């Protein structure tokens, strides 16, 4: 018999498989076309960004911002370097404004209530309904507005006056007690401003001035400049006095644990001691006399010696600055506590040096919630016929005990001018889509002399048929027969600013003034020198005793979130996924409990507990935290939305549910420090979405620090830097001694490729850990610049977040039981661009390789996703796209930076040192015919850092800042001596006032 395949069969098989192979090559993808502009818009060159100056309104600080737009789309926010408040930096909330602009859950059209649901209507119809509603109300109209710029505020007031109604301002985060205290102390009815840069010593009585209090970016810059050790070894000291270490508290040098509500007594005792040695307390002398150290020590449990020590520091290391207590510490004695702190400042000589009552912070809301609660009473009593709500969400931010949604039902006509169908708007009769600040006109007046324009950076996002609230009001006024002098809000604003200019009587023509305002983003008007005020006789009596709290159990602190504020920015994936700077938790809420307390209660991190106050109840997972008093627990505001958007709804809990609707009599502010809570385990657990593995360095030289006196004595210089002997294959495995500095790359014998390294830059970075406050602005800036995707709650719980940079946080010294040093260290960890990168040799397809300029490059389209590089990276800075996360709901994708690839699933990514910015700077330099200068390349993280902790540049350039900083005796590289990775990032050690055990690097 014949064996084997016949020739015919063979050819048959060959033919079919050959044809099959050919078919596979055909693609069914649609052909996509690029069509150039027929008539190009002015000022737009495709591929070149256009920048606009504006003001960020995410919080009340009033930071100036620059908006980068590409082809008519806003894609990045940065601080305006000319603006004194932001100084070029911007916080995470500021960056996230883009996700507010492109929020897919914004209202698309005006909505009218019909029965239980809402129907979309046209603007004409909506405006007609609005007019009808307001007219029908006669003068029983109330406008409740969130924080607005001065011109819009003025327009609102004029409009409401025209109909005989009232305007009240409401913001859930209101420093009304501080304002009242300033009025009582100095006769200036406004928030003072603070100069942390001039302070030699700072006492914070609970104010989170680096995270969420009044003007965090500005305060961070000033604080970092003062407390960052320079070559003269000058370093300011920071003592934190309070029940809980906020992010600010974590940056302190010393923690004096103080029960919530007793801060005022401590401040008075310290002021008493200072005034005894010469400080003038004026009309408060008697008050201070009543709060001598012994009396106060007995009341609050802090030793007399400690009080004396504190007083002595405040004077000897001055100029001192005391701030406090912030929103969480706002109890029934809030005004009194603030007043006590102002008295301490005056007695300690801060006024006019670090504290400026007349240089008022005008843009912050200081409206008392009591005004709104009074309105609620009127609403319930049926006295209000029409209610206009603008940019405010009281149904969510007020405690349920206030009964706001119920009161709304008693108002015949409610209209909400807002950007989404939120908890409040979903009770309104008419809902009008407002514009986002990035697509609208407005202005800001953060200081008496500073005025800034808020201008639209792009045409309104077409997905949303929105209108500027100013335009709506002008149209309404017209309908009511009132002429407010302008057709549109733009005209009204311009008029207002030209009036401002006229009042200056300067020689600059009006138009030139207007254009300068638009271009530079801020105008500094001379207001004349003002004398620092002195203490006045208070016109009301205050009690300084700690407030009585409801309920029993553990003291509850409800604090504003540094990511969401009062919850306003909760529908932004960037912020939800940003690990909270204190807890490192994302996407869900947590209750902070001291580890000993948790252990006594039989609970640990991840256990879900029931938190009960006399006013409400919640279930939330526990996070144990050594930085809080044993008898105190804390919850952040901003979670627990029910109608806010797909990223916010159903996530976390709203701690306002635990609070009563109680007002502090003196200032009218809402009491946050009001109640105690009982914590009970529910028996359930949940996985915590955290980036934190361990916060103990575990005997590894990751963030060594140095004591100031040791630094001054030169002890670091004397320290022997361990020499690395690199075993190189070339030359027969001879060990080559090296220090592994970035500028040494590439070592002789380890050369990759055929190029002369001296002709190229070596990009490197220096990060000053003495300045870094752990605020995480860099994380969001990087995400915004580099199209880094958000992965969601479930993926975050699995440990799959995609952040290119993370803030590691280590507890070296935290003691909630007695006053003493606190040492919490932050380490921004990003790709180190190692000269001897472990990731490069193991990638099977060369997706990870080293460029001649020293960058560790990741080629996305070459990556097959073996993840060997991530396994071999000792710093764990490589992140993997486990799914394709790039498909985001419109119009969030409008934010993407066209200069950076959007990665698909199955691909590894990591920090690229903003290579797109490097290339852009190099192109610009080539076009200009010059070399790249130091400062031309600013990666997004450095650009955004309020503390100016990050410096990037070419370390081969001896004049560059990064080269100079890397020479500092404080500089070290993470793990380098252990594994010879030769990182390009030099970290500068944190400097402490207490002795530290240095783990040998």
């Amino acid at each position, binding site marked *: 018999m014949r064996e084997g395949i016949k020739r015919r069969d063979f050819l048959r098989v060959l033919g079919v498989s050959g044809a099959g192979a050919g078919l596979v090559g055909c693609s069914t993808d649609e052909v996509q076309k690029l069509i150039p502009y027929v008539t190009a818009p002015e000022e737009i060159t495709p591929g070149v960004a256009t920048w606009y100056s504006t003001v960020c309104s995410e919080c009340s600080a009033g930071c100036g911002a620059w908006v980068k737009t590409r082809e008519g789309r806003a894609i990045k926010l940065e601080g305006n370097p000319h603006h004194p408040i932001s100084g070029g930096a911007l916080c995470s909330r500021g960056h996230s404004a883009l996700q507010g602009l492109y929020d897919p859950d914004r209202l698309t059209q005006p909505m009218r209530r019909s029965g239980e649901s809402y129907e979309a209507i046209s603007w004409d119809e909506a405006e007609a309904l609005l007019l009808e509603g307001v007219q029908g109300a006669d003068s029983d109209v109330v406008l409740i507005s969130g924080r607005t710029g001065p011109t819009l505020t003025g327009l609102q007031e004029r409009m409401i006056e025209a109909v005989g109604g009232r305007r009240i301002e409401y913001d859930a985060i209101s420093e009304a007690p501080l304002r009242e205290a300033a009025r009582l102390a100095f006769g200036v009815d406004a928030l003072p401003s603070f100069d942390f840069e001039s302070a030699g010593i700072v006492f914070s009585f609970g104010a989170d001035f680096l995270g969420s209090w009044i003007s965090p970016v500005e305060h961070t810059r000033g604080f970092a400049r003062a407390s960052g050790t320079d070559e003269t070894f000058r370093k300011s000291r920071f003592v934190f006095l309070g029940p809980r270490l906020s992010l600010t508290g974590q940056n302190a040098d010393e923690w004096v644990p103080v029960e919530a509500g007793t801060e005022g007594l401590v401040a008075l005792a310290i002021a008493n001691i200072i005034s005894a040695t010469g400080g003038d307390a004026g009309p408060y002398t008697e008050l201070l006399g009543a709060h001598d150290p012994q009396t106060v020590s007995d009341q609050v449990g802090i030793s007399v010696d400690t009080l004396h020590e504190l007083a002595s520091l405040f004077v000897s290391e001055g100029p001192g600055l005391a701030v406090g207590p912030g929103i969480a510490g706002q109890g029934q004695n809030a005004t009194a506590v603030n007043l006590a702190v102002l008295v301490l400042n005056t007695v300690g000589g801060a006024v006019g040096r670090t504290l400026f009552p007349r240089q008022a912070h005008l843009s912050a809301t200081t409206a008392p919630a009591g005004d709104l609660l009074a309105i609620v009473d009127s609403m319930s009593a049926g006295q209000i016929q029409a209610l206009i709500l603008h940019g405010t969400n009281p149904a969510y931010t007020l405690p349920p005990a206030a009964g706001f949604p119920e009161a709304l039902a008693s108002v015949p006509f409610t209209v909400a001018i807002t950007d989404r169908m939120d908890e409040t708007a979903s009770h309104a009769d008419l809902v009008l889509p407002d514009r986002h600040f990035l697509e609208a006109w407005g202005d800001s007046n953060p200081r008496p002399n500073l005025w800034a324009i808020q201008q639209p950076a792009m045409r309104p996002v077409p997905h949303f048929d929105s209108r500027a609230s100013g335009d709506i009001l002008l149209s309404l006024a017209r309908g009511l027969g009132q002429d407010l002098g302008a057709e549109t809000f733009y005209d009204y604003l311009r008029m207002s600013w030209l009036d401002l200019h006229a009042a200056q009587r300067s020689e600059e023509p009006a138009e030139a003034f207007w254009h300068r305002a638009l271009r530079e983003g801020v105008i500094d008007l001379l207001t004349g020198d003002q004398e620092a005020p002195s203490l006045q006789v208070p016109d009301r009596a205050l009690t300084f005793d700690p407030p009585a709290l409801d309920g029993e159990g553990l003291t509850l602190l409800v604090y504003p979130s540094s990511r969401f504020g009062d919850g306003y920015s909760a529908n932004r994936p960037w912020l939800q996924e940003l690990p909270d700077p204190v807890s490192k938790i994302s996407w869900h809420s947590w209750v902070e409990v001291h580890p000993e307390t948790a252990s006594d209660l039989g609970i640990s991190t991840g256990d879900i507990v029931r938190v009960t106050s006399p006013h409400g109840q919640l279930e939330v997972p526990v996070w144990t935290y050594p930085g809080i008093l044993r008898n105190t627990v804390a919850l952040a505001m901003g979670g627990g939305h029910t109608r806010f958007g797909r990223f916010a709804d159903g996530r976390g809990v709203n701690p306002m549910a635990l609070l009563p609707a109680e007002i502090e009599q003196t200032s009218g502010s809402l009491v946050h420090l009001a109640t105690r809570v009982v914590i009970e385990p529910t028996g359930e657990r949940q996985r915590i979405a955290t980036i934190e*593995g361990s916060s103990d360095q*575990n005997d*590894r030289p990751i963030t060594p620090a140095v004591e100031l006196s040791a630094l001054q004595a030169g002890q670091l210089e004397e320290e022997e830097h361990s020499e690395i002997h690199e075993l190189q294959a070339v030359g027969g495995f001879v060990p080559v001694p090296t220090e592994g500095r970035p500028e040494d790359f590439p070592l002789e014998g380890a050369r990759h490729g055929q190029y002369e390294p001296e002709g190229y830059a070596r990009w490197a970075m220096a990060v000053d850990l003495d300045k870094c406050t752990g605020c995480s602005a860099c994380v969001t800036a990087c995400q915004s610049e580099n199209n880094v995707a958000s992965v969601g709650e479930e993926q975050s719980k699995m440990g*799959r977040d995609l952040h290119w940079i993370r803030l590691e946080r280590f507890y070296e010294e935290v003691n909630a039981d007695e006053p003493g040093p606190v040492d919490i260290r932050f380490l921004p960890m990003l790709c180190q661009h190692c000269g001897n990168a472990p990731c490069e040799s193991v990638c099977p397809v060369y997706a990870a390789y080293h460029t001649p300029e020293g960058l560790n490059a990741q080629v996305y389209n070459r990556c097959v996703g073996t993840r060997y590089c*991530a396994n071999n990276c*000792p*710093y*764990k800075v490589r992140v993997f796209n486990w799914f394709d996360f790039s498909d985001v709901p419109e119009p969030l994708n409008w934010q993407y930076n066209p200069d950076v690839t959007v990665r698909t699933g199955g691909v590894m990514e990591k920090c690229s040192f903003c290579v797109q910015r490097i290339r852009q700077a190099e192109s610009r330099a080539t076009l200009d015919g010059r070399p790249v200068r130091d400062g031309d390349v600013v990666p997004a993280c450095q650009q955004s850092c309020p503390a100016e902790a990050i410096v990037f540049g070419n370390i081969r350039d001896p004049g560059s800042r990064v080269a100079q900083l890397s020479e500092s005796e404080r500089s070290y590289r993470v793990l380098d001596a252990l594994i010879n990775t030769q990182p390009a990032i030099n970290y500068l050690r944190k400097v402490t006032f207490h002795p530290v055990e240095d783990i040998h690097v």
Partner: protein
Amino acid sequence: MSSLAVESERGAQTHPDIQSYGEVNVDILKMLSRPGKLWWFLFGLATAGVGLLAFSWGNQLITGIGLTGLNSPVGWGVYITTFVFWVGIAHSGTLISAILYLFRAKWRQSIYRAAEAMTVFAVMTAGLFPLIHLGRAWHAYWLFPYPNERLLWPNFRSPLVWDVFAVTTYFTVSSLFLLLGLLPDIAAARDQAKPGSLRHRIYQLTSFGWRGTDRQWHHFGKAYLYMAALATPLVLSVHSVVSWDFAMAIVPGWHATIFAPYFVAGAIFSGVAMVITLTVPIRKAFGLEAYLTTKHFDAMAKLCLVTGTIVLYAYLTEFFMAWYSGEAPERQAFWNRFFGPYWWAGWIMLTCNGMIPILLWFKRVRHSIAALFVISIFINIGMWFERFVIIVTSLSHEFMPFAWGTYRPSVTEMGIVIGSFAWFAFWFLLFIRIFPPVAISELKEVLPAPLSRSAREEAAR
């Protein structure tokens, strides 16, 4: 002849109970007859398992590798564990068929065929995982050096590329070696099969026209010898290369020079245990007690004992060196294996690989087929967990404490891992039904020369 002499002669023989050559043909080829219910049941299970594998993998390809439980820092988990597990198992087959051939060990004859088949199928199973664990598996061919217009080579410095060459070579050589050795036996089966049937056609194709002439036998002998010599270094090199996936990394717990011999010993250890696990049921099911005697199992058990002791020594060396280094990351990585979140895996590993093989020191245990079967299963559980412990615990506890994290395998991953076992079983079950799983021709070589009837009667008296 006295009975004592007969006894000692018996003892010297490897298969004392086989009487004649003809018996061998009949017994072995009988295994290729119509399969019984048990086989169909097992085959059905295996097919279902392969279906699970296909479904899980397909789903993973479409939806994304995120269907696993992997994360940062644990980028490799049960897929790579199972990959190393199967590659390891493959090695003992080649050891038994090639190395023991060169050493002229007489007891290998009846088991080496099944072992060699196990090798080929184990490599086939292992070879799935480098594809399965990729983020973009459709670009896997980029790891091969093929001519392309961008003039790109793969990175030859990467151990993963070495794996590509090692595993491909191993698969090629092992399958050729298996096929070569099978030729005379397939011919025997062909001659027995009904002409014109499907079976006959298959045997015709795969016997490559073997006629059993002197010349063919001569060439066969030489070819087999050279193939054995070629396959021998692979036993040591392939798993050394696979171990370098870990040893070449800087991960504490991976970066140790002992990995190559440690893994090779471990491979033989687990592979021989798997051979025991496979041959005990085959022996029972097909009544091969005369062919697979306690002598064979005793020899395999001794091999397990030796390699298991080497593995235990390697563990102790690792612990000692980690402590001796004085380096915190190294010391803590090993401490973490037994007292960290994966402590249970560490102790399973130590117990199954370190404690249980101690039983093999006892002859009674080595001569008990049932005991060996149970022990072999524990050894393989232990060896799977050894790779899990090496990979997962080391990755979860590296240099940067803030980045430490744990990993839980997902349903998709377990589906694919279980499916891989089913895939292996699928091919093995098919093999034992189609091709003779005991080497007929080689077996005959070690049987004593056939005596005439009268001589046998003489010997019995």
